[in-house]
């Protein structure tokens, strides 16, 4: 059709109606805190995804740092495996400090 298609290779021209990929957005509200997942958006490339994440998710001073990840890059555990993955931790209460009763005078440990 034109030069830019040829330079781009066989795959460069998307089919009509192809969507911009979906990205998940993680924002750290201030130094010292974790990045939290706050939603998703559509963007055509990584630079755009970061800029749009800033425009969409940090208008109310909610951000000091932004991560974006393509949604199809997120690996999640299979919900069917929930019991196998997470139940075994339930009965290991000795991992929690509250399991250990100490005299008041040293309880601040």
């Amino acid at each position: 059709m034109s030069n830019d298609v040829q330079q781009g290779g066989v795959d460069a021209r998307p089919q009509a109606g192809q969507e911009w990929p979906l990205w998940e957005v993680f924002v750290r509200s201030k130094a010292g805190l974790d990045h939290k997942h706050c939603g998703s958006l559509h963007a055509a490339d990584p630079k755009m995804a970061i800029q749009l994440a800033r425009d969409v998710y940090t208008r109310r001073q909610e951000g000091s740092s932004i991560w974006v990840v393509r949604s199809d890059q997120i690996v999640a555990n299979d919900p069917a495996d929930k019991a196998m993955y997470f139940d075994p931790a339930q009965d290991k209460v000795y991992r929690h400090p509250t399991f250990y009763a100490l005299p008041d005078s040293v309880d601040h440990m």
Partner: protein
Amino acid sequence: MQASSIELNRAPAVQYVLRIGDTCLILAQRLGEWCGHAPVLEEDIAMANIALDLVGQARALLTHAGQLEGRGHDEDQLAFLRNERDYLNLTLVELPRGDFAFSVLRNAMVATWLKLLWERLAASSDAELAAIAGKALKEARYHQQHSGDWVVRLGDGTAESRRRVQAALDTAWRYVPELFDTDAVDCDATASGLGPLWSDLEAPWREEMQAMLGEATLSVPAPSAFRSDGKRGRHSEHMGFILTDMQYLQRAFPGGVW
């Protein structure tokens, strides 16, 4: 408060500040038109952000211009009650928003220009103007990045997008000389330390725009002999329609409190 026009004090310092403030105001006016009509929802939000930054800059500058004027005019009287010939924005920003290519190109051109101007105004002998510049510089940098990235995407995208940005360039480039021509207002500002000659911005601006357009695989149009004159109050035909819209309520409800 009257609905009839206010008389502007055209002291050079006032004009210098209004040239910048009005440019921000009228560009914001054009960008607001995209709300609900952008190609993708994310860009509705992004364009509105840029418009909001520009409204903020306009408010600060018009308020300051009113102080320099010394006639007790506030930001709204200046924004809504001047006659057309007393608006001093660049003609470039009053052109219709056109298609998305035109809007992002114009944003990139103006943001680059504003960024260079704010950088120099941060050293203004006018403390208030310097403070405004310090804050506005961060916004201009972001606007330049956002719109510059779009110019590259569209220039080096499809044949159609390149055609549209090139057409936008051909239209917009005719209004560039006005950004850099120097007159008595500039000279007065430089003498007092208020701000730089606008001609000082030309070399760095052309260099940055050249780099952006090069990456976008676009060609810079040949210069034309046309000279626009918005910053001296002689506007294009578009300005009248903008003001009719913008001023309507203030004119229709004299003495109104909003």
